[in-house]
């Protein structure tokens, strides 16, 4: 009788204890890591590579970094929810293993991988994502990324659905929505929240912070920073990717970023063997390095056109408010599309390719380069240089040649103007010199004004005190939407006539309409048709006369394995977790 009673008690206890144990075990065992499996050839673990940086990073705070170098280093230390594969130019899952879009295209629900940890071992969950986006959107933080998240005039709404699910609500459907996430690093709430609440976020994660104050989801974490010399990153043991053989990435033990201030110095050090990877250098240096390729165990790659496009444009601003009566008089020439078409027809693009880039560039007649295979309108005409056609266009626009060869307009004023260039960019200066010579054959008297970059920007965007300028832009992504501000007439970087209250010309109004349309059209084929039409208008009305796009030239030592450079930034390090040392 007592035994049965004891058994009953034991069973009773068991009924108490078992659920308790189950609860306890549920709490202590974290969900197993859902690592991403990558597709690359397997590499060898260990080793270190050295990469040159042209300037020092300004900060290691992902929410505040605006310059390229900081972003290059930060990219190795952080990860985003959805990533753009630089080879295919399409989006792929990153920290978010999957996502779904609502029917109206306004809600994106992302599912986080479970069981992932930051580089300091702390777990990642939706709270960190919420916190990160809160930071990016906070107006007091002044994050350069904030504007990416303002769609249709309203910032996106971020909601946590559960520990591993987040929903993003947009004010309107947005075709490039997935691509926004690329580069938006997820920050650790456990390390930054206090600093943020204390109002000190501007001083968080600067270069003077110690390595143990950082935590990220990237393949590497900060090991050491020596001011003026180098920054060293070491392997992140908690990185969330593994290769097909089940080995956790990255393969490399360490990356060293060496500060080498000029491109020539970088070339010299690469040749001497101090650095392993050389990213984006000029065609002249390519020729020099080419000679020693096999002898010094490195290889150079010419990846074809990138996303940079260089162009000449004229001042089409409304100058009534700013003064500059001299320039205003010349605008009667600049504003006539036939004048711009004549200028474009007279430019010897082939010589630009040959003399400025030693053949390693592609001529452009539109704003989208051949490097952007997804969006280029291949049906655009590529007329060769024709001085006759130029002269005909000028004649139809009322210009004529005087006896001594000078071109004069309908009032008899000789055509002369200046082209502004950036003194520190030798390629654009050279292009301007060649253009000046070409235009002299039409009878135009052109001279070149070389200014230092910020002085030039001041003239272009503040004082509007310029006549023509040679500039270049690099689109950061293949998708046309991130560059909207250049093509919208109200845009701040609508270089030739920024911030218009209403479109100054019919074709600018048309471009406005089309750009807004492509922004919300979700079907790629329909979007492409719309954007093709934009490219046609630009190529016909020539607000910018596109000249050339330099090829992407990179080099790497043979010992670097899995080196697959792409023509979109970051050219050589986009797959840094897959690189290894042979």
């Amino acid at each position, binding site marked *: 009788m007592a035994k049965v009673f004891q058994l009953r008690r034991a069973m009773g206890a068991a009924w108490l204890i078992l659920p308790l144990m189950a609860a306890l075990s549920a709490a202590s065992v974290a969900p197993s890591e859902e690592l991403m499996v990558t597709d690359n050839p397997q590499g060898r673990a260990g080793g270190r590579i*050295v990469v040159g940086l042209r*300037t*020092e990073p*300004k*900060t290691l705070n992902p929410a*505040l970094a*605006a*310059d390229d170098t900081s972003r290059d280093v930060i990219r190795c230390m952080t990860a985003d929810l959805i990533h753009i594969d630089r080879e295919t130019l399409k989006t792929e899952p990153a920290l978010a293993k999957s996502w779904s879009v609502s029917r109206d295209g306004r809600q994106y629900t992302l599912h986080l991988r479970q069981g992932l940890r930051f580089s300091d071992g702390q777990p990642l969950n939706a709270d960190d994502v919420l916190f990160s986006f809160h930071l990016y959107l906070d*107006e007091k933080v*002044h*994050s*350069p990324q*904030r*504007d*990416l998240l*303002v769609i249709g005039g309203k910032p996106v709404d971020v909601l946590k659905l559960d520990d591993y699910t987040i929903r993003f609500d947009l004010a309107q459907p947005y075709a490039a929505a997935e691509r926004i996430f690329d580069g938006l690093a997820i920050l650790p709430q456990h390390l930054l929240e206090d600093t943020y609440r204390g109002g000190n976020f*501007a001083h968080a994660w*600067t*270069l*003077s912070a110690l390595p143990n104050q950082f935590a990220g989801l990237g393949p590497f974490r900060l090991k050491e920073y020596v*001011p*003026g*010399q*180098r920054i060293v990153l070491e392997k992140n043991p908690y990185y969330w990717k593994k290769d097909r053989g089940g080995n956790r990435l990255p393969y490399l033990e360490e990356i*060293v970023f*060496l*500060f*080498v*201030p*000029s491109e020539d*110095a970088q070339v*010299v*050090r690469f*040749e*001497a063997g*101090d650095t392993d990877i050389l990213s984006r250098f000029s065609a002249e240096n390519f020729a020099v390095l080419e000679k020693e390729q096999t002898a010094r165990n490195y290889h150079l790659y010419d990846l074809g056109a990138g996303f940079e496009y260089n162009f000449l444009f004229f001042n089409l601003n409304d100058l009534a408010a700013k003064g500059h009566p001299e320039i205003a008089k010349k605008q009667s020439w600049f504003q006539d599309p036939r004048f711009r078409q004549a200028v474009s027809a007279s430019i010897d693009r082939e010589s630009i390719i040959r003399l400025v880039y030693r053949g390693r560039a592609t001529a452009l007649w539109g704003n989208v380069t051949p490097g952007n295979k997804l969006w280029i309108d291949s049906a655009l005409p590529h007329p060769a240089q024709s001085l006759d056609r130029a002269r005909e266009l000028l004649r139809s626009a009322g210009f004529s040649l005087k006896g001594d060869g000078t071109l004069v307009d309908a009032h008899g004023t000789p055509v002369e103007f200046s082209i502004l260039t950036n003194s*520190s960019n030798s390629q654009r200066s050279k292009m301007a010199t060649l253009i000046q010579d070409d235009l002299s054959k039409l009878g135009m008297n052109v001279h070149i004004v070389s200014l*230092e*970059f*910020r*002085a030039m*920007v*001041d*003239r272009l*965007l*503040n*004082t509007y005190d310029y006549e023509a300028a040679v*500039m270049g*832009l690099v689109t*950061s992504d293949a998708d046309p939407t*991130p*560059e*909207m*501000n*250049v093509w919208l007439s109200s*845009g*701040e*970087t609508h270089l030739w006539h920024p911030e218009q209250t209403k479109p100054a010309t019919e074709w600018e109004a048309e471009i406005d309409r089309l750009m807004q349309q492509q922004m919300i059209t979700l079907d790629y084929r329909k979007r492409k048709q719309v954007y093709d039409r934009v490219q046609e208008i630009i190529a016909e009305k020539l607000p910018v006369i596109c000249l050339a796009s330099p090829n992407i030239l990179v080099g790497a030592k043979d010992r670097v394995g899995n080196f697959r450079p792409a023509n979109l930034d970051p050219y050589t390090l986009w797959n840094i977790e897959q690189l290894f040392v042979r």
Partner: protein
Amino acid sequence: MKYIRRRLAYAALLLAAISFLSFVLLQLAPGDYFDALRMNPQISAQTIAGIRSEYGLDRSLAVRYGHWLLSVLKGEFGYSIAYNTSVGTLLWVRSRNTLLLAGAATTLAWLLAIPIGAWSAKNRGTWGDRACGVATSTLLTTPDILVFLILLFLAVRTGWFPAGGMVSLGAGQLDGWGQVQDVALHLFLPCMGLALTITPALIRHVRSAMIEVLESPFVRAARGHGIASTRVLFRYAFPVAANPLISLLGFSIATMLSASVLVEVMLSWPGLGPLLVEAIFARDLYVVMSVVMMSSVFLVVGNLVADLLLFANDPRIRVE
């Protein structure tokens, strides 16, 4: 003592004036640091304005200058927009590197100039002297940029010297002596280049100073007494010739500092030079002002030291 105190007070005044003037000049040039961001289509002007106000770039000139002065007194030397840290931290490391380079180069230059100049003066008019004259003239007319480029070129072609930087990778693992050797190896080329920029001028000055002294009566008298010529050269002639040379020393430090900017930039030596050039192009206001101040400090100190040496060397000046 009173002399030193007076000089120091005047030096402080000079530095204040320099800082104010460079501040004013910096405002003349159009554009500021954040103008580079305006060309980025993905960042709105509002955000840029917000960032600008956070760094205090929208406040009046007087306020900004006042802030900077206060910061100098605290030892922080203002805030660098580009590096996101106080300028003081940057200055300390970079100044040390520049002083190392300038000091080594000055020593090398004088070590070369004095014997060669003296020998040239002694053997004046001979073929050796003329050859020396041609060599120094040629070096004088060669632009610095060219000299540095040729050195860089040699470095790469021969591989005997590192092509830039101050330490090799993994130098942290070396022992003390190893580290010194490593730095010395990296120091050689920039030091050589920098020394070559002033050595020819120094040689000529030493030579002309020595010639003047060698022709003076007391040296002739000494020679007449039968004293050996080397002894005459160093024990009699040189101390007198040293006068103009000592003031030249103070002066050469100044030229050295400005030439060092170029060599540091071209040979990637992490000193004040690259910092200044980058800050000028980036319009990083306080860095430029602080670096200019720093180099003015070196200039003033150099001149002061030269004056003191002159004081010590020449009893005639002490009497004044």
